């Protein structure tokens, strides 16, 4: 009788009433809609940004907008090459200075330092991330730049035989000082990701190297660094993304001169800085040109970050273990969050 009731009845006694199932459905569809909303939002933003940038692209042409070497607001010429070059030079400098230091700090913290020092050391490097970018700008322009001007001039004079680096007159705001401050700003994230990746190196590998008679340094060179290479490169790329998008510190430090600087210690401009600096007063095509600069910046960071994620995730995945994937894929985004912008 019971079996019949179950098969012929409207619903099994284990089944919930349609009314009781309602909150479940609502939650499920509600949350799915929320997730879909994020996707829609990004696509919508991108389309609107392209729409706003169109007048500038129409006036200058896409190629001559991006690679035209003439940013002259009063003459209504908008060629973003000086901005693009400023962004690329300062970011490259940041990588050149910041990554070796960050990796050294990570190696020291994971392999060489006394266990007791490891946590405080990690904390100190990550504290750099708690400093807002406007404070870096303030500190850079009023402390670091004036203090280093003499040294920069000395280097520029000694290296005057190298085109682009030496020879010129050093100004207080310049490409080099911007790159240097950016290097400090990307230090925590590059170091945090390098550390995460280094902590996934199996102890077996390290012990095998030591057991074969390797010195500490040889162990680091043959067991740790090769294992972490793509993770470190990925971390560096994430740092590069940060440096490219950094706005306020760069605006304060780069000098905001809308032309190509003649040498490393001259003033320049960057894509992000031009938006922050000129947007308030911009009208018409000028404003559209700034949106276009934002679009170029957006696409640039998108490319760099896509490559970075690919490298970090692949580094973690090729090492097999699930914890590795989480360490480099998931946790590093937490670490990345912790070491904020």
């Amino acid at each position, binding site marked *: 009788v019971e079996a019949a009731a179950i098969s012929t009845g409207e619903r099994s006694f284990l089944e919930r009433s349609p009314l009781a*199932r309602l909150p*479940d459905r*609502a939650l*499920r569809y509600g*949350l*799915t809609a*929320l*997730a879909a909303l*994020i996707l829609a939002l*990004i696509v919508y*933003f991108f389309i*609107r*940004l392209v729409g*706003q940038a169109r007048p500038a692209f129409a006036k200058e042409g896409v190629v001559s907008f991006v690679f035209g070497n003439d940013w002259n607001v009063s003459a209504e010429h908008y060629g973003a090459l000086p901005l693009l070059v400023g962004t690329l030079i300062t970011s490259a400098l940041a990588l050149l200075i910041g990554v070796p*230091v960050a990796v*050294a*700090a990570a*190696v*020291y*913290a994971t392999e*060489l330092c006394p266990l007791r020092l490891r946590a405080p050391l990690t904390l100190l*490097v990550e*504290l*750099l991330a708690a400093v*807002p*970018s*406007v*404070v870096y700008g*303030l*500190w850079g322009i*009023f*402390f670091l730049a004036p203090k280093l001007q003499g040294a920069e001039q000395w280097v520029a004079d000694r290296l005057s035989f190298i085109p682009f680096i030496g020879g010129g007159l050093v100004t207080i705001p310049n490409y080099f000082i911007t790159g240097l401050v950016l290097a*400090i700003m990307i*230090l925590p994230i590059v170091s945090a990701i390098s550390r995460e990746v280094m902590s996934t190196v199996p102890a077996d590998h390290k012990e095998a190297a030591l057991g074969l008679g390797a*010195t*500490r*340094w*040889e162990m680091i060179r043959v067991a740790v660094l090769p294992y972490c290479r793509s993770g470190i490169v990925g971390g560096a790329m994430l740092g590069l993304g940060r440096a490219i*998008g950094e*706005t*306020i510190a760069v605006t*304060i430090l780069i000098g905001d001169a809308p032309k190509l600087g003649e040498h490393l210690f001259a003033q320049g401009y960057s894509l*992000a800085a031009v*938006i*922050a600096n000129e947007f*308030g007063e911009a009208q018409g095509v000028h404003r559209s040109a700034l949106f276009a600069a*934002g679009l170029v910046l*957006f696409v640039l*960071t998108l490319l*760099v*970050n*896509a490559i970075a*994620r690919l490298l970090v995730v692949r580094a973690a995945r090729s090492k097999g273990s699930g914890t590795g994937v*989480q360490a480099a894929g*998931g946790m590093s*985004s*937490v670490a990345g*969050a*912790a070491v904020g*912008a």
Partner: protein
Amino acid sequence: MSTQGTSAAQPEAAHLERFALSPARRRKDRLARGTILAGTLIALIPLALIVYYLLRKGLGAWSVSFFTTDPTGNTFFGGSSIGGIKSAILGTIEIVALASAIAVPVGIGVAVWLVEYGKSSWFAHTVRFFVDVLTGVPSIVFGLFVYIVLVVGTGSTYAGYKGSIALSLLMLPVVIRSAEVILLLVPSALRESALALGAPRWRVIFSIVLPTALPGMITGVLLAVARAAGETAPLLFTAAATLKTSFNLGGFMNSLPVQIYKDVTSPTTAVVNRAWGAALTLVVMILLLNLIARLIARRSRLA
């Protein structure tokens, strides 16, 4: 370390000699370790310098009136008449509070969806990819987005809540990713036992999963708040155009980072000093948030 075994006291010392480290390798090891240590110390120098300068310059600017007056004073006469940073502090708190009120529920909602429903479907992967894209977007581009949609789009002008929305976009990926990592750590045995007892899915999420993950999620949220509080660029053309204290998020609103940015570019020494004082205030606020986040993370039973 392993090489120190070749002590002369042992009888085998003579033939162990050939296992000893050659001077060249030893030198190389010392040199490399020294370089790494030097790199680490170099990494710590900027922090020391920044903290030192912030304290030296910032504490000098601090006074009671610094925190209780608005920066509306006349800057031409210099001195103490330039005013403090009350409106900037309150503005930052208001803008960031509203940004958190938007970003936290949405972010945790998306994270719950990713962990409980989306899992590894193609749609969930797409959402994760787009969240990663959001992480990499420069903050000034968020400012542009919000400007296009809420200032150009509505034909109105700047407002505090528009700045909040820009900041909430910035916080979203941080909240989502950190909450997702924590939610994944909730043991599935907890979920399964609740389901086996007959609890519907939504009860499992609200009564089991979220409370278990709460401390860890708070950590992520506080870190996101700390990140948003220091952002200048997205506020420049969404919220900031005033000096007076305002409690109306529909109107113009001052904030600490924007106040600092404006003061940095001033030629007046007193105004620059106010920037140092404001910078110290901002850094202290952000450090406190970071500290609380770390303390909660340490207490969390997960992770």
